[in-house]
């Protein structure tokens, strides 16, 4: 794949995402000039790019979709859910073709056929539902929008307006026409502009007998009124309907103008006659409001300028500096805002960025991992040198040098990890669409709120968490949220709410999926668990409500009353938990019947670096991943109880079985009675809690796990290897696999 093709793939994906977001936004909020325009442009650009990389099928499909959107743009078609669905479907097709193109450099064989039938469907959709007669209204040209701004808001909202373009023939004076006389007769004329039809020639060449005018007018008149006035020159006029005010305010309210507007208001306030009182409250609040608004629209540079002006104003005790700065800003704001706004809607507006191939970052990451291992060896060597040479300068210097190296390597590793950090918005961005589609299919009204999208985490997490989250979100819409009728009956608003939120606390990332649906009934879960024999009946009876609802993560337990194709057939929640645990995280669910359910995925931000506890068992050293270790305990013999053939002990109201690690690993252990006070490491994984008996607990180390390679690659029960401080290879156990 050459560079241009790569560029096409990347750009197409971005455009598809952006158009998807915009389509869903107009579905919610209705016609919005700016968004429709952007959607239209996205389709248009996609069509053009498809032509560049020679994908005629994609071009054909997009062309049909573009026509549909042109109709929306011209207001011949209202924005309906059906229309948005058509457009989204088209984007889905494009997106799957882009994937195919990236993988194989070509579209699937049947693409042409698919494109033709999809294009036919789009066109049928367009012609079927075009309101009859609407085609008669020509699309209003740009000047209408410009001119209509001169009309006061009250006139615009209270009257039906018509725009008129009158271009008199050059020889009209000889026909006895009086263009200005006609214009003067326009009933209820609200706005007028007169401009030359062609640029004025030099004075000497002007023909005063030839009319060179183009007249644009807005009037609160009917077509018939205007036609009557211009009845002698019908060939020289054109009439357009003026879009109603609703659409115009939507255009007015785009963020860029809100900023202009707010700054304009501050200037107006300061220019007010009474403003010469030079009250701090007045110019101070103007500066604060303007600076806040600038910050809000990510123009922090300009906000600082305003704040600096405020400082000067305070010194001079005059509103002058603030007023001047604000006036100056209005002239500078016009153009750069477009790009700033782009940043808000598209990818995060970063500084300058550099695109790097993932593989290069991964190799840098591996090297940095090996560097840590090498450093661990050096630390051991340093200790030996120190022991050998005693307290002399040499020992001290070597220690200092090692410590410096330590720090630098740790910093470098952190920097490399930072390279792998991506915002979770990449993970979250498909979910609004997912929720929309499922909700539509199930006839539910669901609003999804996405929070904390700028939170960053390792790219590995983003890649691996998508499936589990998809599952949770689908579940929430499908099972969690009630039907609108049920919600009404329960006294809840019909519109349900799902929140997807990422938060970061230290090196942990928490992702919450919350819904305000029916909640999970612990009794129903217990009944289901009994029915499906998930665990022994007496164990089920012993469960608290809170423990019961955690059972939704057990394999084979689904609370769907009916099997649907949306959230599968009772598989899934266990997969969610497994995936999260593989990433070193935990899954918890909390729920209140009638009020909703919340699932939290709690994960380490960096999946790559693991904390390892080194333990001895059966005469060897093993590493245990710290994230499954909940505590270490040394037991007196009287606390160990014999339960049938197994041993166990009670830890805070829970019975924890004891397993000797050596036994689990089939190593020759010490005779059991030799250890009167067993040393236990309590580990919690896969929903199980077990105390592992070990001979000794050595130390902890931060390590990057290397996967098992070569002959050992298939050995079960090992998460990987790492190097101990003295350079020995340490096997790190995968306790989940080992204990299952």
């Amino acid at each position: 794949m050459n560079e241009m093709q790569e560029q096409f793939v990347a750009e197409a994906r971005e455009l598809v995402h952006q158009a998807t977001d915009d389509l869903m936004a107009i579905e919610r909020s209705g016609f919005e000039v700016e968004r429709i325009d952007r959607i239209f442009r996205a389709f248009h650009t996609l069509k053009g790019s498809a032509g560049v990389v020679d994908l005629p099928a994609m071009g054909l499909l997009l062309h049909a979709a573009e026509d549909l959107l042109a109709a929306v743009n011209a207001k011949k078609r209202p924005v309906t859910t059906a229309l948005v669905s058509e457009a989204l479907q088209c984007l889905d097709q494009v997106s799957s073709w882009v994937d195919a193109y990236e993988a194989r450099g070509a579209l699937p064989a049947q693409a042409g056929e698919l494109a033709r039938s999809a294009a036919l469907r789009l066109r049928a959709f367009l012609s079927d539902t075009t309101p009859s007669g609407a085609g008669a209204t020509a699309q209003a040209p740009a000047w209408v929008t410009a001119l209509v701004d001169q009309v006061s808001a009250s006139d615009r909202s209270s009257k039906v307006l018509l725009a008129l373009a009158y271009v008199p023939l050059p020889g009209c004076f000889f026909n006895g026409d009086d263009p200005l006389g006609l214009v003067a007769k326009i009933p209820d004329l609200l706005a007028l502009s007169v401009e030359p039809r062609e640029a004025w020639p030099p004075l000497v060449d002007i023909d005063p007998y030839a009319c060179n005018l183009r007249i644009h007018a807005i009037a609160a008149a009917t077509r018939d009124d205007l036609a009557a006035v211009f009845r002698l020159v019908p060939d020289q006029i054109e009439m357009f309907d003026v879009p109603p005010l609703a659409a115009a305010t939507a255009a007015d309210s785009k963020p860029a103008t809100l900023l202009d507007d707010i700054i304009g208001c501050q200037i107006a306030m300061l220019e007010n006659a009474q403003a010469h009182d030079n009250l701090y409250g007045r110019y101070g609040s103007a500066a604060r409001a303007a600076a806040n608004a600038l910050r809000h629209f990510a123009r922090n540079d300009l906000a600082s300028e305003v704040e600096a002006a405020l400082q000067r104003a305070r010194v001079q005790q005059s509103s002058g500096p603030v007023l001047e700065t604000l006036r100056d800003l209005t002239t500078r704001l016009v153009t750069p805002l477009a790009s700033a706004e782009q940043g808000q809607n598209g990818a995060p507006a970063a500084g300058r960025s550099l695109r790097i191939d993932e593989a290069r970052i991964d190799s840098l990451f591996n090297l940095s991992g090996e560097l840590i291992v090498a450093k661990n060896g050096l630390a051991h060597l340093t200790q030996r040198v120190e022991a050998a040479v005693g307290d002399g300068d040499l020992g001290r210097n070597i220690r200092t040098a090692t410590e410096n190296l330590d720090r630098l390597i740790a910093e470098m590793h952190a920097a490399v990890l930072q390279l792998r950090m991506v915002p979770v918005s990449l993970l979250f961005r498909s979910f609004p669409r997912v929720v929309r589609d499922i909700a539509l299919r199930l006839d539910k009204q669901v609003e999804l709120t996405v929070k904390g999208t700028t939170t960053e985490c390792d790219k590995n997490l983003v890649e691996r968490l998508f499936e589990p989250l998809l599952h949770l979100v689908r579940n929430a819409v499908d099972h969690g949220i009630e039907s609108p009728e049920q919600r009404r009956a329960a006294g809840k608003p019909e519109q349900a709410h799902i929140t997807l939120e990422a938060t970061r606390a230290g090196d942990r990332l928490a992702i919450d999926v919350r819904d305000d649906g029916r909640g999970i009934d612990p009794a129903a879960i217990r009944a289901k668990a009994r029915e499906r024999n998930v665990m022994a009946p007496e164990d089920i009876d012993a469960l608290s409500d809170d423990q019961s609802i955690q059972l939704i993560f057990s394999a084979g337990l689904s609370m769907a009353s009916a099997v649907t194709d949306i959230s599968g057939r009772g598989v899934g929640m266990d997969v969610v938990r497994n995936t999260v645990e593989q990433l070193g995280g935990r899954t918890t669910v909390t729920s209140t019947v009638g009020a909703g359910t919340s699932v939290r995925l709690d994960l380490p931000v960096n999946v790559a670096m693991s904390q390892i506890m080194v333990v001895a068992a059966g005469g060897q050293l093993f590493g245990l991943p710290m994230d499954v270790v909940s505590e270490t305990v040394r037991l007196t013999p009287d606390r160990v109880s014999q339960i049938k053939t197994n041993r166990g002990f009670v830890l805070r109201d829970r019975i924890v079985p004891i397993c000797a690690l050596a036994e689990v690993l089939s190593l020759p252990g010490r005779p059991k009675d030799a250890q009167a006070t067993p040393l236990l490491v309590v580990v919690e994984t896969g929903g199980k809690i077990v105390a592992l008996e070990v001979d000794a607990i050595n130390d902890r180390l931060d390590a990057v796990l290397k996967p098992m390679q070569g002959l050992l690659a298939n050995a079960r029960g090992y998460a990987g290897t790492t190097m101990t401080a003295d350079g020995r290879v340490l096997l790190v156990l995968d306790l989940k696999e080992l204990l299952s």
Partner: protein
Amino acid sequence: MATAETKGRRARILVVDDSSLVRLYYLSALEKAGFVVEQAINGIEATEKVLDQDFDVLIVDVNMPGMDGISFVKDLRRRNEDVAALPVLMITTEAGEQDFADARAAGANYYLVKPVSEADLIRHVSALAGWAR
């Protein structure tokens, strides 16, 4: 999606209106959007709250018994403390030019005409509070 923070904390809004219904309407809209909201029933109570607590934006109705919105803002702007410079979003009942001129003269930073839609309220308050986006 906006984060609910400005200067690292949630933005605090004071709603000044004599109608409890109107206050409730603003309150629920603002809280849903992540703001922390306090209420006052007229200019007198608003002055007490402003002197006592930190706010980022004041939303002020014009017509209120006791002390109306215009007098409240005029008085606020004349104070010497930092509270004098609090951004004020004034809600007027009429869209007349004179109403805007009065609000401007008093020292309001922005004005919206009743009825204010939830979306408009949040958009304007977010901007005036300098909410990070």
